């Protein structure tokens, strides 16, 4: 359905075809509005900016999101982070996958965002984890099923507390390094401080920007991680002959991409029309209208992904110019800045596994299957009822031991 509908909130145009969605994402006349309800943590952050303001900040931050940086994370830093995070759960014989996913990705997101953990203790990480989960709640307030005003107030307080405990010391350390002319870590916070004068960012914007990178890096990858394991466990139940394929990172990466296609982190994209827009298909978007990009439908567009588009098929072939993960990472100016870090580079024919970037989610899934992950028959997974988004609330799995 693409015809405008008039609601209490104004005119809404819902896009369900892949072509319309891609064109909408690339239109400069359609500005981001997915996080309008989540302003407590999302106001003035990169993904919410438009026009010159967005371009200037993205130019600065993109310097940190380069493939050579991703290679260092994927090859040098993250395998050890995953192994250390996983080890106690393997020894214990199991874990809640939802918790593990967020803990793993928090470790990564803290590094990329620039949030120091000087104590290096499990308690300190647990406190940062609690803040991150609160920020996630703030960013997804639009889909909350609870008391949104109370949740927004709790998020605002969490930002203040997190700033005092984690952000302010992280800023102080980087400022001291800058003043001493010493090398800064390659993270978002250091990048912002190095370009502080150029961007003119007040402290409260730096606070939200770093919080955003913490929550976005942690949450989107964590949900993709849990869902990929879920899809793969399903597939191996019906195709046990494919069990050996989980040792192939190219296969695992295709599973991640297929999972992300079927389960975008946000089920919709949303834009607001700054001017009338006419899409090539003839869809008319009036000025001021809200454009809802139904990613669930767009990524199941049978004209692009075939008649079995709704099925999980890691061997699916996609047409030239179409990413195997559909539009889950968006497109256009707001295309996910961490896409290659999380999901790797799309493999072309004859990709060299030694030089290829598989993405951090792929690496984490691979290590989990190497640890013998399987569902806990005594405790089935359950959905998260606190949000309308289709998240898993708990997903107990067994590790190690008898398989």
């Amino acid at each position, binding site marked *: 359905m693409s015809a405008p509908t008039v609601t209490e909130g104004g005119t809404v145009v819902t896009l369900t075809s892949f072509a319309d969605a*891609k064109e909408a994402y690339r239109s400069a006349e359609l500005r981001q509005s997915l996080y309008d309800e989540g302003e407590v943590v999302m106001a003035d952050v990169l993904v919410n900016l438009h026009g010159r303001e967005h371009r200037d900040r993205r*130019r600065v931050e993109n*310097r940190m999101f380069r493939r050579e940086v991703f290679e260092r994370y994927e090859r040098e830093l993250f395998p050890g982070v995953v192994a250390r995070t996983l080890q106690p759960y393997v020894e214990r014989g199991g874990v809640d996958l939802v918790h593990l996913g967020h803990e793993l990705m928090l470790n990564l997101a803290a590094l990329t965002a620039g949030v120091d953990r000087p104590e290096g203790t499990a308690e300190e990480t647990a406190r940062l984890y609690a803040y991150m989960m609160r920020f996630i709640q703030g960013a997804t307030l639009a889909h909350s099923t609870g008391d949104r005003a109370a949740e927004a107030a709790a998020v605002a307080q969490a930002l203040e507390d997190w700033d005092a405990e984690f952000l302010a010391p992280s800023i102080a350390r980087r400022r001291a390094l800058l003043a001493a002319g010493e090398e800064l870590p390659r993270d978002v916070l250091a990048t912002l401080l190095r370009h502080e004068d150029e961007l003119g960012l007040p402290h409260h914007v730096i606070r939200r920007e770093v919080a955003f990178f913490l929550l976005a890096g942690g949450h989107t990858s964590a949900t993709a991680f849990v869902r990929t394991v879920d899809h793969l466990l399903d597939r191996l139940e019906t195709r046990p002959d494919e069990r050996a394929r989980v040792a192939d990172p190219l296969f695992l990466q295709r599973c991640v991409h297929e999972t992300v296609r079927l389960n975008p982190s946000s089920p919709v994209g949303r834009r607001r029309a700054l001017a009338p827009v006419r899409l090539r298909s003839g869809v008319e978007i009036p000025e001021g209208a809200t454009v809802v990009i139904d990613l669930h439908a767009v990524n199941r567009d049978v004209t692009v992904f075939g008649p079995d588009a709704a099925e999980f098929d890691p061997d699916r072939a996609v047409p030239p110019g179409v990413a195997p993960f559909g539009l889950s990472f968006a497109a*256009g100016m707001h295309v996910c800045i961490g896409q290659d870090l999380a999901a790797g580079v799309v493999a072309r024919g004859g990709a060299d596994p030694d030089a290829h970037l598989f993405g951090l989610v792929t690496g984490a899934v691979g290590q989990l299957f190497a640890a013998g992950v399987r569902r806990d028959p005594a405790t089935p997974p359950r959905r998260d009822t606190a949000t309308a988004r289709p998240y898993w609330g708990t997903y107990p799995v067994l590790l190690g031991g008898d398989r």
Partner: protein
Amino acid sequence: MSYRVSVDPEVCISSGRCVADAPDLFRFDADEIAEPVPGAPQPADERALDLARACPSGALLVHDADTGEEVDVFG
């Protein structure tokens, strides 16, 4: 038809996708804005279209080499 590819520096957001995908054709300038590698050949038509389609900001422009008209890479 023969195409020519250029970068609109006012639109480029320094995503680096063209530099990573086609280092033989694109590089960063001193301000980390993408620019064609001096002296590099023009890419084959299909590659030009692929690179322009992949550019997140739409800064990579494709023109008809004969007429100079901009090509609609999604058309």
